[in-house]
């Protein structure tokens, strides 16, 4: 067993209101530079929808992630080493910038400098950030917000549904899906990088691009099934979400988590066995979810703790892993699910699926969406939202997706009964196989969601961060680099241990 730590995230989708604060703060922090105008390390898309970039989930088209070959061996969908190098001069699986969108800027001077007394209000004209020419804006990273536009029925996940989805106003459903890099345990981008410039950090599993070693072969962009590696067209190098590693090292949550208005993000560490990763990525389609859950090691198991200690992990990390909200949501309550486990990259950003599509459907079907029995029946009867969620989060396993929704529905009904008349709804607990204490702790973590419980980032990192602080500036400060504009040799003051 080779025990490693991974900083992982869980997002509770029921609480996402699609406000894009995470996207905006991320953009201001990391990608407000020339060459990354079109890049959103964090984006929020509306589901159903084709997403950003367009149709990124359609792996028949983009060839991202891994698949099993005829003999059941794990291979990159876009081809192995020789095939990849043979396509290095023109990568056939690279999205064009139009698959993201053409970035635009506006001539705002016209609003400021317009003479007084104009008959018509001056209008600012969009200009392409790529060519400087006037342009019409016809697409964006969030064009489909709240089922806007007319592309949502082209969502690749809808192909897997047994019934046709109708998008009539009163029958439809939608939810928001915030996405960052998954910092996978079996990253296809790292595996496809010809230069070896991409790597997974041994200490915390964060996947990064070495800006000095990237040679711009752009294979990572194709190989990532989530399309979360981007080409900076000004520097000719790949860039991606860094999980805000300077903040994580300082014991702070990522900027998307810190600023999340809905408080729906959770950050913590997980132990996993590196030797088990390949096997877990190579199981049959029906076992994907269980296999990916089974890679994580129980932080309360003494064998695991001993292994972690032997591998040189500090005591703070062992304790942080026990307090990890991510471990609780994924492995204890088993209500968090990975996004597209069938890509076989073992993503490390998991999601608590939203109950809202089912509630919408229950309401549309004339059922009482406050009655747990009705919700349970709705989950059983109304296949569309459950099948859709299963296509996103469980590789099509509707029982697993439905089971999670049952837990969430039962938690609501149980807490409603506790709060309103003090009764304990034992039949609900029996239905989901959880104890009253567990459900109340789950409720506290999901609904109260205190800052210190959402973000458990190990203290040992902070000690190292002090040493890091002494470096002053960061190695990414070069011309056009992700840290460009840093203040050079002036050390940054980092406040830690914030709570609210």
């Amino acid at each position: 067993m080779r025990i490693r730590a991974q900083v992982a995230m869980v997002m509770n989708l029921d609480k996402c209101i699609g406000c894009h604060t995470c996207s905006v703060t991320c953009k201001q922090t990391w990608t407000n530079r020339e060459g990354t105008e079109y890049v959103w390390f964090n984006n929020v898309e509306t589901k159903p929808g084709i997403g950003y970039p367009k149709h990124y989930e359609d792996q028949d088209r983009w060839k991202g992630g891994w698949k099993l070959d005829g003999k059941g061996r794990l291979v990159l969908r876009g081809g192995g080493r020789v095939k990849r190098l043979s396509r290095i001069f023109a990568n056939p699986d690279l999205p064009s910038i139009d698959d993201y969108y053409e970035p635009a800027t506006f001539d705002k001077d016209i609003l400021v400098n317009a003479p007084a007394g104009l008959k018509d209000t001056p209008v600012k004209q969009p200009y392409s950030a790529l060519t400087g020419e006037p342009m019409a804006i016809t697409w964006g990273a969030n064009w489909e917000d709240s089922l806007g536009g007319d592309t949502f029925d082209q969502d690749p996940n809808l192909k897997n549904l047994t019934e046709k989805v109708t998008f009539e106003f009163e029958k439809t459903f939608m939810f928001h899906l915030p996405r960052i890099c998954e910092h996978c345990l079996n990253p296809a981008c790292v595996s496809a990088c010809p230069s070896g410039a991409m790597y997974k950090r041994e200490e915390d599993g964060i996947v990064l691009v070495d800006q000095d070693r990237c040679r711009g072969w752009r294979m990572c962009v194709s190989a990532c099934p989530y399309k979360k590696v981007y080409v900076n067209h000004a520097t000719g190098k790949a860039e991606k979400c860094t999980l805000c590693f300077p903040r994580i090292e300082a014991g702070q949550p990522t900027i998307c988590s810190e600023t999340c208005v809905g408080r729906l993000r959770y950050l913590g560490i997980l132990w996993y066995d590196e030797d088990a990763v390949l096997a877990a990525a190579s199981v049959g389609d029906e076992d994907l979810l269980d296999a990916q859950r089974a890679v994580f090691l129980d932080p309360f198991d003494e064998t695991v703790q001993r292994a972690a200690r032997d591998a040189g992990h500090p005591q703070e990390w062992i304790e942080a892993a026990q307090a990890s909200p991510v471990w609780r949501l994924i492995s204890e309550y088993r209500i968090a699910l990975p996004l597209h486990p069938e890509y076989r990259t073992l993503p490390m950003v998991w999601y608590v699926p939203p109950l809202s599509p089912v509630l919408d459907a229950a309401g549309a079907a004339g059922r009482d969406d406050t009655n747990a029995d009705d919700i349970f029946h709705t989950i059983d009867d109304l296949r569309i939202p459950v099948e859709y969620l299963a296509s996103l989060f469980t590789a099509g396993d509707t029982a697993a997706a439905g089971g999670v929704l049952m837990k969430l529905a039962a938690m609501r009904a149980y807490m409603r009964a506790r709060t309103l008349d003090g009764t304990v709804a034992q039949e609900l607990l029996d239905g989901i196989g959880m104890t009253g204490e567990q459900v109340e702790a789950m409720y506290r973590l999901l609904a109260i969601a205190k800052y210190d419980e959402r973000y458990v980032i190990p203290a040992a990192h902070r000690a190292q961060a002090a040493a890091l602080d002494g470096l002053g500036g960061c190695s990414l400060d070069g011309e056009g680099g992700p840290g460009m504009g840093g203040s050079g040799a002036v050390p940054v003051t980092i406040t830690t241990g914030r709570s609210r």
Partner: protein
Amino acid sequence: MSTLVWIVLPYTCLVVFVAGHVWRWRHDQFGWTTHTSQLLENRLLRLGSPLFHLGAFGVIGGHAMGLLIPASWTALLGISGHTYHLVSVTGGTITGIMLVVGLALLIARRFISGRIRRVTTTMDRILYAALTVMVALGMSGTVAVNLLGEGYDYRETIAVWFRGIFWLQPDPSLMSGAPLVFRLHAIGGFLFLALWPFTRLVHVWSAPLAYLWRPYVVYRRRRTPAPQPQPAPAAARKVVTPSS
């Protein structure tokens, strides 16, 4: 004059070639890239780039064959001058045409696509101009002189002079009888080498062959100093530098 052109110039260019690469490698890892623009334009690149690169491999291979292998060696192997001529002219013409078409497409996309025009640097323009001149001179040598014309046996003159450069005994008199296009191509070739380290051509030396046997997932430790038990005094902080 011939000493200047056929001795001083080649050595100067080779020194610039080597020193330029050392300087660039040490000081500009961040700029050491293919500078891909496929994201911005794919239609012309999809055809032009593979044609250009595969053509260039053929052309470089052909130059290595013609310049580095003495005629006496191929004669020893029983390859007649006629057979050699046939192979070199056919191969040179085919790969040369691939190179010309590829280069034309790559240059065309620099003009046609506004997106590409905006990201084209001065150094790119110089590089494309130099490539065009070199390819034009080379192709006129291969096609006009050796394929259609009476032919010129560069293996007895230019190749001997070229190898002499590396033995430190270049003989400028060998170049006096060479046709003008060959002489210009030889001069241009050395100037091109001198230009090389300052352009995006440096990506050639990063051809990712190691990818073929590397394990898929790369793990790296963080590049930070070990955690210190006590905060370092301000004076000591300056010493710590990020090293690779």
